[in-house]
């Protein structure tokens, strides 16, 4: 896990450097450390639609490169993170956000797992409480059982001696 995330940040750094160099030569200005941090955070939170289980930071698809360039461009022109996210979702929908907003079309996605967990817990509690109900043992029964047990043990030891 550690090596994986390490490799990821190396890849990100390389991509970031490449993108920064590319834009610096074209635009003549560079990202401040804060902007670079924002860039890295944004490109890691946007899903690439071509290879859907990769972020646009990880994907080598041309579309991912276009979107990285857009993110870089918009950071340089002073757009906020929310504005950049809006730009991307206006074109590709909430699906591109690894953390989609909580709204009418996504509440089931956010609350579903907790609802299922609660349901499962409820069912489990009911089942367990019904299952474990020890039969009451009344004292006379207990005495009678003890007597039977002793008789059986006596018989057993007699058999053995024989």
């Amino acid at each position: 896990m550690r090596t994986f995330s390490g490799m990821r940040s190396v890849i990100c750094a390389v991509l970031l450097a490449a993108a920064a160099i590319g834009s610096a030569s074209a635009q003549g200005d560079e990202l401040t450390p804060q902007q670079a941090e924002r860039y890295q955070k944004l490109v890691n939170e946007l899903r690439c639609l071509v290879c859907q289980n990769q972020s646009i930071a990880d994907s080598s698809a041309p579309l991912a490169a276009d979107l990285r360039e857009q993110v870089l461009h918009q950071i340089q022109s002073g757009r906020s993170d929310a504005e950049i996210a809006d730009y991307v979702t206006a074109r590709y929908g909430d699906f591109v956000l690894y953390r989609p907003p909580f709204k009418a079309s996504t509440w089931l996605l956010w609350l579903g797992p907790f609802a299922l967990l609660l349901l499962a817990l409820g069912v489990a509690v009911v089942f367990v409480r019904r299952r474990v109900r020890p039969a009451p043992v009344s004292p006379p029964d207990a005495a009678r059982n003890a007597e039977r047990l002793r008789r059986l043990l006596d018989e057993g030891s007699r058999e053995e001696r024989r």
Partner: protein
Amino acid sequence: MRLPKYVWALVPAVVLLGLVLLFAIGLQHDPRVVPSPLIGKPAPGFDLRIVGAQTPFRRDDLLGRPVLVNFFASWCAACRDEHPLLLDLARRGVEIVGMDYKDTDADGLLWLERHGSPYRTVVADPEGRAGLDWGVYGVPETYVLDAQGTIVYKQIGPLDEQTWRSKIAPLMAAGSVLQTGSR
């Protein structure tokens, strides 16, 4: 809460049935098809030119009648699959505007010469700028525009006869005197 025993025995069965239903729906769903947020919205503007020429072509040129806007490319293998249908639709009088996506004019024109052109207009989008604004993430993709320039449908991947007949033809017929139905 005193329920008869058999009700409790049914709980796992009902849960299982629910899960089976959920998975059945999930398996029908193609995860590669991401619904576009642009459906029902005005088509994004662009300022491009016609392939192999300097004639400008803009969003306004798409208004006034229903059109199909088809993003294709000479390097796109799946575009070959839908090509016969597009040619057939063009013969039936459907106006199709081709967007030559991330392609060179020369390659695009050669490809159209080789396979035939179903397009009334072919627009060059060499950097995929219009594609990005329209939310294209893989060619072919086809947008259905009504006369006001609103995107009323989006087909992701190759168009097929079934989709044309059940989804797109009715939408286009609603906005024009297009002849539809059997060939």
